[in-house]
């Protein structure tokens, strides 16, 4: 009899199949073995004595997951399958998890160099490696301008730190610069951008729980050392991971979890509650599509919808970009149907504009852009005149 955290997390699964409706992998393949229900059932079977199943094969199936968390939101039993799978993987160490860890840890150092070298290296790069490097380059767009004139925020004079996320920190300096200007414009007392660790989401989902815990401890310690200010983010996944820290064993002080949760603010939600003067200029005819990332809150685009001219049409895409989880290492070819499913929702446009509010989604959407769509984080399109 195996008794583990992961099996306990899945024991409540009633096999109802509500997760089938939302799982990007199942939706794009129709293969039941990749569905959340299948994985929860496998972990249930492993928790009883069963000689038919090989732990190694189950671990491989457990790795075929995007960790998007959509199944958790749909589950009537509140089963957090990505966390259960991460715990299972953490008990089944393998070289791929190690490699994943190395990739994430070394990426900050190599990303800027690689992205600047991409054009020169492009003849020698195969497949989407070239696109991936090009996706990390700073973008300059002329298709849309979001011009902020003034922001009146309820956070005026509050102390804040910027948490930009790894991709921004090492490859997208323009996002950081723009984010700072929005924070200053909102009247916040910005204390700077300390030496944060990665938010830890990818590491955690790969099953490297100890490494992820170390990163979380560092981030908590930084926040404490600055006197627990607001933490401003512009990445949906970073925000999700930072909030998820309250579920980790980090020696929290009394009531500190609530303070931590209240301190994490996405810049878009700051704009939701602010009075904004905004002009929107676009030079294309088709609609602007707003991407609802898996980890974004439902009101992520409220500030833009509320303040944009009524003449502008917005469409929405509520599909997973395919970046998350360990799928890319376990079965990279399976990304294709997931990505195709996302882009199929705008197949009749082909030359539109797709905005996102997640650093990772921007990277993935730009890498796998099959047509002449402009893609970008909304910060790419912001212009502020002092």
């Amino acid at each position, binding site marked *: 009899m195996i008794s583990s955290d992961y099996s306990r997390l899945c024991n*409540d699964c*009633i*096999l*109802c*199949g*509500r997760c*089938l*409706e939302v799982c990007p992998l199942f939706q794009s393949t*129709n*293969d*039941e*073995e990749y*569905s959340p*229900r*299948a994985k929860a*059932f*496998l972990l249930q*079977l492993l928790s009883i004595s*069963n*000689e*038919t*199943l*090989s732990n190694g*094969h*189950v671990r*491989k*199936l457990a790795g075929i997951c995007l960790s998007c968390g959509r199944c958790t939101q749909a589950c*009537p*039993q509140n089963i957090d399958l990505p966390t259960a799978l991460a715990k299972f993987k953490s008990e089944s160490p393998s070289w791929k998890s190690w490699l994943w860890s190395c990739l994430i840890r070394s990426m900050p150092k190599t990303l800027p160099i690689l992205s600047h070298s991409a054009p020169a290296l492009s003849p020698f790069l195969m497949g989407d490696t070239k696109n991936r490097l090009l996706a990390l380059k700073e973008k300059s767009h002329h298709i849309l301008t979001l011009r902020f004139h003034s922001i009146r925020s309820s956070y005026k004079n509050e102390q804040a730190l910027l948490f930009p996320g790894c991709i921004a920190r090492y490859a997208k300096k323009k996002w950081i610069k723009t984010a700072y200007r929005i924070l200053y414009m909102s009247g916040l007392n910005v204390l700077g951008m300390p030496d944060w660790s990665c938010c830890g989401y990818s590491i955690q989902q790969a099953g490297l729980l100890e490494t992820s815990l170390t990163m979380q401890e560092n981030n908590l310690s930084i926040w404490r050392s600055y006197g627990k200010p607001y933490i401003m983010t512009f990445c949906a996944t970073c925000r999700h991971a930072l909030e998820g820290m309250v579920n980790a064993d980090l020696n929290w002080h009394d009531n500190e979890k609530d303070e931590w949760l209240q301190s994490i603010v996405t810049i878009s939600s700051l704009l939701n509650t602010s009075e904004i003067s905004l002009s929107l200029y676009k030079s294309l005819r088709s609609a602007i599509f707003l991407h609802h990332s898996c980890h974004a809150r439902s009101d992520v685009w409220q500030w833009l919808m509320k303040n944009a001219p009524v003449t502008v049409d917005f469409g929405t895409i509520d599909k997973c970009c395919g970046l998350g989880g360990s799928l890319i290492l376990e079965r990279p070819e399976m990304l294709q149907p997931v990505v195709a499913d996302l882009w199929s929702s705008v197949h009749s446009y082909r030359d539109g504009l797709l905005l996102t509010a997640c650093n990772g989604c921007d990277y993935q959407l730009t890498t796998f852009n099959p047509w002449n769509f402009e893609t970008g984080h909304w910060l790419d399109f912001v212009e502020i005149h002092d």
Partner: protein
Amino acid sequence: MKSRQQLNTKQKDFLRSLFPGDQSIFSSEEACVYGADASRYNDFPDAVVRPQSADQIRELFIWANAEMIPVIPRARGTNVTGACVPKGGGIVLSCLKMNAIKEVNFDDFIAIVEPGVVTADLQKKLQSNHMYYPPDPASVKISTIGGNVATNAGGMSAVKYGVTHDYVLGIEGITGEGEFLITGGRCHKDVVGLDLKRLLVGSEGTLAFFSNITLKLLPLPESSVVLLAGFDNLDQSMSAIQSVYKSGILPAAIEFMDEDVVYCLKKKGVLQDLHDVSSILIIKIDGTEYSIRHELDKIELLLKEKSAIRIEKGVSSEDQEDLWEIRRSIQSAAFIFGPDKIAVDITVPRGGVSACINKIKSISNYYGLKIITFGHLGDGNLHVNIVYNKNEPSQVQAADNATHDILQEVVHLRGTISGEHGIGLAKLPYIHYQLSDYAISLMRKMKKVFDPNNILNPGKCF
């Protein structure tokens, strides 16, 4: 669950050649989910195949007859009776790769679909063209037309619009002996010969595999409104619905929830704004804008006269969906009372609903088990969940006895032991409560005509 190695190398080679690449699965880890469904019964398949054409299925059936290997058709496995569990092994035939909407014809008012099409996806496609396919089982967003036809699925709208078999005009299928069969077609009336398609609908994969299904469509009603009415107790809600019936209005759906259901939904946070109610009715009316205004006023007045303490209205499709989501949440919310449950979906004549509910309450008290009741009041189809803990032998025995007693009472009330879930494995021990030995023997003879070697989903349904 035991491990089996029923297929030999030659048999596996055959399947690999007929279902190349990832069309066939043999590893236990990948195959095991294909051996389970929402009943939580399970067994390991010996193989899973995912055909993309009817020709492949015909060849599979001919081979399986020669080899005497069971074949278990399966869609998304959302049934709650174990209807697609490969008990004792066999080859699971997943139809999820056959999921094309092949034709929607607005002149003939028909759609032709493959079995793997998700029911809600079809409804959505039709809605944008002002057409309507009414059957709406609670699993409508996740279950398929193939599964719905195989189980003759009902749903919330059955009171006004009927169930799946009322919408199946034609079936192209492959019988158990591997013969192509075309029965019915695209005509809305057809009385030539015996109605074989009617026999196939609800046969739970025991007679034939359905490769193409022709469905009848209706014009989409211009408008609809969903009402949620909250009451102090169940008796008030029963009295209120009698008034609605007598007013001459036929709602498109009438759902009820007893006190225990309301309690578990509150515990699950589903009824956040309805703390003061103990019993709930959900009523849907549809028609023209004009008729709805009139009927809505009338129903609201009747509900208030019958002591409704809360009335919520869903006018927009999003608000309606929110109210239906309350109903769809019950099956899982029931687990707050215990880790296991036996779900039965009895149906009694409309006039017998109150008597039936009272009997169930007595049985619940007698055995000391939580038994919740909810469902489709309009057609007398009650969902009864008997909640227990399978690790407590005394509770297992009590739950079995309670199931037995409830089903006996239902037959005594001239009802049926299943209104829409079907028999599968779960209800098989009870069918003789309702069916005579002669009726069962006729069904088995018919099975032999379609499937002489009993390879198609053996041990289910009758």
